[in-house]
């Protein structure tokens, strides 16, 4: 245990995902030794992200305005929606430059064991977007792991009566992995070869 402020910082850092007590301590001492200006920039970035960044009213992606850059872009194809779990998945897919449609960010995957059910995700918002008949294809790009698959299964069943084309990213993605770990080439190929989920 360190004195007040240092221990506080270590405790706060230790709450971050993927940061264990040892890393928290290392980062804290790195910050202590850093130039004041560098640390000011970091605190500014932290405050700004909480003040300025919000979630897009339409797709749920992170955005600095009511609607995100992709939803505002008239050149994007409004007939296709790609459903992902998190904003970082949007970034991963955008990197491939394969996709010109729009997105819908669920905010996670269905995980009964963590108490996360369909009602805890932005599924109602998705259904509202599909109701005007403009969208003709729904691409289910949830993570290629069990919870992502289960979420895709749930969504496919839910939208079935709407008669859309429902597709799932092709294999080649690392099963059991996170979408964000897939490299651009693999992810691009998975997009190209997406398969229809209709029976």
């Amino acid at each position: 245990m360190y004195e007040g402020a240092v221990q506080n910082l270590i405790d706060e850092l230790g709450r971050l995902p993927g940061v264990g007590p040892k890393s928290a301590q290392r980062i804290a001492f790195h910050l202590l030794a850093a130039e004041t200006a560098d640390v000011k920039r970091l605190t500014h970035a932290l405050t700004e992200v909480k003040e300025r960044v919000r979630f897009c009213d339409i797709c749920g992606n992170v955005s600095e305005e009511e609607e995100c850059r992709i939803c505002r872009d008239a050149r994007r194809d409004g007939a296709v929606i790609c459903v992902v779990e998190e904003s970082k998945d949007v970034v991963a897919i955008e990197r491939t430059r394969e996709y010109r449609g729009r997105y819908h960010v669920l905010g996670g995957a269905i995980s009964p064991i963590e108490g996360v059910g369909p009602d805890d995700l932005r599924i109602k918002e998705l259904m509202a977007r599909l109701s005007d008949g403009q969208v003709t294809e729904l691409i289910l790009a949830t993570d290629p792991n069990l919870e992502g698959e289960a979420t895709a299964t749930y969504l496919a069943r839910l939208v079935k009566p709407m008669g859309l084309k429902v597709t799932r990213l092709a294999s080649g993605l690392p099963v059991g992995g996170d979408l964000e770990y897939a490299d651009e080439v693999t992810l691009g190929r998975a997009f190209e070869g997406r398969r229809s989920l209709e029976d």
Partner: protein
Amino acid sequence: MPFLGGDARTARWVRGCHRIRDNGGVALYRDEGVVLRTQNLGEADRIVTLLTRRTGVVRAVGKGVRRTKSRFGARLEPFSHVDLQLHTGRALDVITQADTLHAYGESIVADYSRYTSATAMLETTEKIVVVEKEPALRHFLLLIGALRTLGENTHDPRMVLDAFLVRSLAVAGYAPALEECARCGARGAQPSFAVHAGGVVCSVCRPHGVATPAPETVRLMSALLRGDWEAADASEERHRNECSGLVAAYLQWHLENGIRSLRLVERA
């Protein structure tokens, strides 16, 4: 043993050998198990909780399994029945090899009600078999049996789950009394079901405000407990629903409302 004499160096050498041999016995072991749960650890690792055939519940680290090129990431997903090689670690064991025996997840995840039922099985197993590394062979056999049945899709997933739940409770020593009063032991079918009394109760022992299920419902629960699928499959929807409600209440009472996924289980 003369060479043990007063020589400190020899003594150290002998102690050293002993340590190596000790480690040789426990450092590396092999078992088969079903993945109950995975949790992300750091950047690319995962903590995997398994119910194994010989060792019971094991928590182990799968290194780098979230990365694209991981050799066994896909094999360490929930519902997978795997053959494992592990290294005993200080806090957590480390998985050094994993081979798929049965990938139950594939067929389970293709159907949402199968998925929610199967998830409740895994969570219940984790909550019932609480002590790590204590053999729990009957729970293990019950679990692989239930996952196989679910995957085959031969019975209503909700009944497969309920059968699994009452039988798990029975293995843990909490079998509900269904053929006699849980309080006084009076033989025969009884009119009420009292969760906290441990099963059906007679009209004399019956506490206030307890459920009075249809006799068919109690018979269904009994069939599920015995594994009598012929009787269970012939049951009516309303009795299955009532049975599910009682089983859930009975389970949650014993496990102190610990099963979160039960809320999300859906009927076929």
